[in-house]
């Protein structure tokens, strides 16, 4: 059990690297002891690399990893005492399910009775008890992944348990069950868990704190509500939410926001404008139709059942609006209003607060 700190971490897979070769850039983060974190980002953003650096499978090109203020940068995974579960099931083919689960404990020379009780406990939890004596190689993909999960969870002394998109190969129904199990388990054993995924639903349901990565950088860390209500980077606005945030080019003059010929009120405090690019960010959920405001043309209405997603167009660009399925949608021309509390200005993609 430990707090994990990453200090100025950068990594490149080539030895003589330039800035362009970096897959991680200057990552700084504290993972609190006992927290449930999700590491969210698109494929190729550096999530897995970051995970492998925390576990010690990869040595970072620059920076330090601290476990409770002890520098572990040069230690191997066994010395760091962590557990990691991979995207595709890794099982030991020639062993039984029982031996697979017992393997990490045997390598750490625990007594047989201790191993037995831990293996049975974890098998019970993952519903593997009835297959304990079967050969592991005969199981289905999700059975195998359960074993992988079990091998990660069977050790009770680990500093952190890391999951690298562990539910990719599992079918949707079981995915839901396993995810709830993990959440339940986190509450029970109260150990730090880091869950890597590119699926926002998975991240938001599992974690207390979601860490969003984009092009090798951490762009925002926060609760699901914070990420939704106040995205710190246009990428977060874009990536989280369905549909994502409207990001609209705007002009700033004398501390005023000008968009589509209208003056817009926002929650950002604009004192100076020294940005190359300024954009307005507003989630489709926080836009209403009204009698006056920005004049738009209604292009398309799609009904998702609970919501209607309306594509509108104005001189400033396309704006998506989300309203209740019961709301009457004006046709042809209309006016929209932005909720000031949730309207932000982004300078060069970062929020202006």
């Amino acid at each position, binding site marked *: 059990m430990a707090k994990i700190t990453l200090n100025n971490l950068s990594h490149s897979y080539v030895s003589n690297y330039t800035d362009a070769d970096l897959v991680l850039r200057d990552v700084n983060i504290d993972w609190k002891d006992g927290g449930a974190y999700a590491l969210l980002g698109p494929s190729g953003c550096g999530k897995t690399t970051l995970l492998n650096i925390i576990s010690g499978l990869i040595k970072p090109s620059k920076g330090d990893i601290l476990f409770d203020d002890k520098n572990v940068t040069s230690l191997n995974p*066994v010395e760091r005492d962590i557990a990691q579960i991979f995207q595709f099931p890794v099982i*030991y083919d020639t062993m039984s399910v029982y031996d697979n689960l017992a393997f990490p404990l045997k*390598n750490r020379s625990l007594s047989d009775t201790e191993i037995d009780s831990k293996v049975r406990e974890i098998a019970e939890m993952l519903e593997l008890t009835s297959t304990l004596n079967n*050969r592991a*190689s*005969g199981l289905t993909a999700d059975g195998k992944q359960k074993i992988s999960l079990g091998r990660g969870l069977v050790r009770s002394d680990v500093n952190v348990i890391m999951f690298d998109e562990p539910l990719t190969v599992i079918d949707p129904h079981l995915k839901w069950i396993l995810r709830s199990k993990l959440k339940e388990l986190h509450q029970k054993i109260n150990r730090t868990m880091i869950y890597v995924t590119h699926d926002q639903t998975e991240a938001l349901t599992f974690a207390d704190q979601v860490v969003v990565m984009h092009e090798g950088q951490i762009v925002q860390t926060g609760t699901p509500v914070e990420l939704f209500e106040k995205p710190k980077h246009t990428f977060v606005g874009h990536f989280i939410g369905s549909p994502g945030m409207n990001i609209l080019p705007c002009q700033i003059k004398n501390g005023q926001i000008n968009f589509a010929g209208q003056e817009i009120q926002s929650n950002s405090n604009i004192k100076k404008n020294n940005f190359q690019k300024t954009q307005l960010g507003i989630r489709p959920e926080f836009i209403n139709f009204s009698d006056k405001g920005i004049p738009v043309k209604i292009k398309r209405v799609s009904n998702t059942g609970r919501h209607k997603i309306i594509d509108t167009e104005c001189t400033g660009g396309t704006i998506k609006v989300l309203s209740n399925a019961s709301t009457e949608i004006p046709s042809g021309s209309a006016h929209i209003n932005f909720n000031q509390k949730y309207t932000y200005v982004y300078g060069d993609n970062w929020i202006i607060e």
Partner: protein
Amino acid sequence: MNKTINQKAWFFVVPVFVLVAFNAAIPLMTVVNYSFQETFGNNVFAWEGTRWFKQILLSERFHDALGRQIAFTFIILLIQIPLGIGIALTMPKKGWGVPVCLILMSMPLLIPWNVVGAMWNIFALPDIGFLGYSLNAIGFDFNFTQQPGDAWFTTILMDVWHWTSLVVLLSYAGLNSIQPAYYQAAEIDGASRWATFRYIELPKMKKVLTLAILLRFMDSFMIYTEPFVLTGGGPGNATAFLSIDLVKMALGQFDLGPAAAMSLIYFFIVLLVCWVFYSLMMKNEVRS
């Protein structure tokens, strides 16, 4: 769907049929024919029944040759399989070392068998060969043309040199197909180097190793050219393996009947061992 019935299509199979008949079926049946008859030349044959088979199966000469053959195959498998796996494990996985190692490993496999025999013959000669001369120079009394032990040593060394590469290449291919996640998982599970080999690498190499053992068994059990050029089966009959003994009987003594019977017995032994071995190796596969 309507099937057009056209028996003329069988003509397309004729070339293959003729080819197989001439290069396999007819020669084999000739051997079967010889094994039941006695001939004194001039195409005159007399029926002998199973006499030759009984004679071969009871002859001490055949027992000795078979014993030598089994010993030879057993020894070279015992050396080549672990050695091959060992070399494959130490070979680099990436970088410029990969093509260099692969080319070095393939070299012995590309040399014609009689050239291998001739090379080792000269290499091991006690008076002028590098190996033979060196061994004598450091105090060993080494002469493979005179001493049976030395002849065996040289033959085995030659076979190990010639064929270990095959095991290496197959094992290397097997090792390279293992996903990195397996090694990472083993590292995190705290597995020792030995445990990683025993529980990940060896099981994942099982199929290629089955193939390697089968190929090496068949090739070494039928070995002819290299020992023929190296020792000619000598000194005495010390290295006269089955095929060398068979050729002596068939062409040296022109005992066609017994030689044909021996050929068939030889053939069935190879077939039987391969079948038993393969079934045993694949038994677990079917169960899971």
